[in-house]
């Protein structure tokens, strides 16, 4: 039996911890948690009881996160500079890393400061173009099938992988450029 009055007590912190590192700020995370509870309230009759309350709330939360990035994607695009892939374009080394843009700093095996890493990561997510960011987040949340993502953004499946490839290259490089290092 669902009991909305106990939701915040039972699941509030959990939902907040789930969303916090997936959106840019504390305030946005709080808003999304609130929207999730209200949206759950209005769709209580659809709760089938074959999953537990928390799983059901998390699935709503994920949709709210996607909605947030969907709205962002609709906003007027800022001037986002185009990204050139970090590989040689011709010659014998065509397709190989450009030496000055290959992965160098920050040690992936070392322990990281999640708070600090997240700040840099969010900054780097913000330089992706909004459509690319929406695709990326939908993949990260693992909530939508590839065909759904393609339909939502109006792209082909090959495009989806090209976008993900680009996005991941860009984010990795950005984190390095913004000077993230394990020593900080």
């Amino acid at each position: 039996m669902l009991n909305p009055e106990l939701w915040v007590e039972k699941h509030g912190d959990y939902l907040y911890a789930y969303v916090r590192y997936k959106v840019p700020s504390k305030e946005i995370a709080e808003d999304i948690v609130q929207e999730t509870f209200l949206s759950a309230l209005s769709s209580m009759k659809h709760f089938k009881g074959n999953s537990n309350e928390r799983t059901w709330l998390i699935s709503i939360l994920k949709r709210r996160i996607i909605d947030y990035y969907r709205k962002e994607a609709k906003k007027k695009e800022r001037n986002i500079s185009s990204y050139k892939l970090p590989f040689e374009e011709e010659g014998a080394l065509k397709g190989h890393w450009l030496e000055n843009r290959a992965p160098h700093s920050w040690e992936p095996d070392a322990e990281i400061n999640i708070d600090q890493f997240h700040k840099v990561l969010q900054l780097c997510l913000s330089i992706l173009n909004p459509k690319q960011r929406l695709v990326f987040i939908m993949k990260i949340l693992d909530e939508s099938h590839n065909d759904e993502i393609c339909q939502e953004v109006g792209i082909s499946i090959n495009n989806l992988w090209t976008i993900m490839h680009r996005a991941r290259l860009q984010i990795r490089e950005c984190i390095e450029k913004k000077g993230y290092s394990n020593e900080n």
Partner: protein
Amino acid sequence: MKIKKTMISWMDRVILDCKQTTFYTVKEIDHGKIPWLKKLKYKTHLSYCSHCKKFYKQTKKIDAVLKITPEELEKNNRYQLKLNTKTKENIVKQIKKNQNYYNL
């Protein structure tokens, strides 16, 4: 240097270059399907290319931070995330208000 370049270029024909390797790295991390022969070629490239290996590990790490679960955060005392009391009270108020609206 010239010999090295020729060697790399020859190897790419048999194996894959870094651009293709990072493409399959992303596909693997994001649960895409990779044909077995491509997978073999891509794993072989990863075994000798330090840049691509680092790309793989760093990308995995970024993915892990974005997908971190509340349970994992809970284990680490430094990163426990909690809603503040005022926000909680506010949400409860909103729920109560809306509960009446939905006649619950």
